[in-house]
């Protein structure tokens, strides 16, 4: 008689324990899936970081563009307030030469 048959006794609630284990194919598949998941997480995070870099690059370009605009405006302002442009202004052209005035004694 096999050892397992001794567990079969009339009117007793018994459970048969059968050792269960994953086969080698299942293990390989699970390992593969795990590697895939980890890989996906890595790729997702990497892409996320790269996405930030693109965002950063765009913001930096905008900053550079605004700075260039600011510099252009500063140059324009300096040109408009220069002595040369003041002298050539219509206001300067219409000024009259001051004459010596008499003072009341």
């Amino acid at each position, binding site marked *: 008689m096999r050892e397992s048959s001794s567990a079969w006794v009339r009117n007793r609630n018994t459970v048969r324990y059968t050792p269960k284990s994953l086969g080698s194919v299942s293990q390989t598949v699970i390992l593969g899936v795990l590697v895939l998941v980890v890989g996906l997480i890595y790729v997702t995070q990497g892409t996320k970081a*790269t996405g930030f870099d693109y965002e950063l690059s765009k913001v930096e370009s905008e900053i550079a563009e605004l700075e260039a*605009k600011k*510099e252009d405006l*500063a140059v324009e302002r*300096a040109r408009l307030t220069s002595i040369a442009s003041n002298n050539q202004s219509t206001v300067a052209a219409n000024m009259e030469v001051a004459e010596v005035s008499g003072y009341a004694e």
Partner: protein
Amino acid sequence: MAEDRIKFLKLGLYFVAGVIMVRLFFVQIIQNKMWVAKAEEQHTMENKILAKRGEIYMMDGSEPVAVVMNEKVYTVVVDPMAADEEELRGLIFGEDMKENLVASEEEVFRDRTRRYFLVARNVGTQKAKQIREAEPAGVWLKEGTKRVYPEGELGARLLGFVNAEGEGQYGVEGALNKELKGTDGLLKTVADVNRVALSIGNDNVKIPAKDGEDVVLTIDRNVQNNVERILKEKMEEFGKDQASAVVMNPNTGEILAMANLPGYDPANYAEVESADVFINRVTEDPYEPASVCKAFTFATGVDLGVLGPETTYYNNGYEVIDGWKINNASQYDSLLGPTSIQKALNWSLNTGSIYALKLIGGDANRITEEGRKKLYEYYTEKFGLGKETGVELYENLGLIGDPVEGDGRDSLYANMTFGQNMLVTMMQVISGYNTLVNGGKKVTPSVVEGEMVGGELVKKERGEGEQVISEETSRVMREMLWGTRTTYRANGTDPAGYYIGGKTGTAQVIRDGKYSMDEWVATYVGFGGTEGELPEYTVMVRIWKDGETTSAETYALPIFSEISNYMINYLKLRPKQE
């Protein structure tokens, strides 16, 4: 049979695996460095972060204003093989790019085998953006900066320019190139196919650029503009073609204006006819100063206590030294006979300054070695002639002869008492005059007021100045120079209540190794301020034309007077109340 096939297959697989292993060994071990370098080249981006060149400011009263600025510009490069001519016709070869184009459409597309053609320079940011957004094939934009000059030619020979390599040349740009230039930074990072810098990677390097200093000059743009205007008007009126002037605060050494005409447009510096216009004649061009030096000779005597304005000598109209006859320029009979030192300065008598040299040497009848040595010491050490003044610009030292070594020292030094046989710069002369009139202090002339930091002016610290002659000598010299100007005052041009003094200098020019009798350079140097107070300004003027006689009284003095009157108004100096 089947087993044989499997064996054969196995052997085949082993062989292929072996070949792969050997290849991998070569690639990964033997050729490792080469492949790593190639990989890095493809996925890393290395860019120089360009430092911004510092801007240059002048003062506008108490406010700094930018006179040399930077503008971002682009160079357009086209690959004719890859570019579409039709597409570029309106975009790059249009009317709006007319001033920037350096090559025509026809030239660029004549030979389509060329891969690189520089098409346009100094393209503005707006146009560059338009080109970039159109994404034309075979077109690159290269970023750069160019210097812009909102004040045009104002102070050009003082400011200098920046050449195509980004190096400062001449003037402030050249002398302060190191401070203005800054240090470039470096960005080395992993990049993707779009050349976007990625933050991943362990070898990323970012060294920020250190921008150049924004230098603020002591030059007041209003004074500079008016001095240049006066020089220009007078040059036209007198028919002269060269003129220089410098205006200073004699008490601090600050230079308020430094003008050299003719000028040039620094934005188009390559278009000048001669590089001569780049020279700053105030600091870089030594010349014989002539009679303005008499004030230094008399000051030496006064400071040593051997003479005063009332000291008298006998004026024969000439002196003979080492067998050479030295004449006075003024040969009026009324000047002959017993003459005071004050009168010798007033009439610029060479015999008077030679007599002073004799007294300095301790013997009223002859020039001695002791006298030469003392005059040399005062000229060079106390008044700074023939020495670097310390101004933050290129300087030429000039030449002051040795008092002992060499032949004909007596004759040489007799000539030096009235500014001949020596070479000095205008900067040295006016610095010496500052000492004569500011109470006897040797102050370092300076063109740098400070630096702009975060939009605010941080002023440079200045020293007090060393006391090199006594306050009393300085007072006497002010009085003597006032007396001299009074003698030559041009029809009452000096307003009442102000204390204005000065001295003329008409220098002979050496041509072909000897003094020319037909070519003279006119100079005038003087001071001004409220009567009874220390002077507020000193002015030196030099005007000439090659091959012509230019006398100081006729040409340099009126220019000084006009600048002096402008300074009185500009500085809002109050006249002395009676």
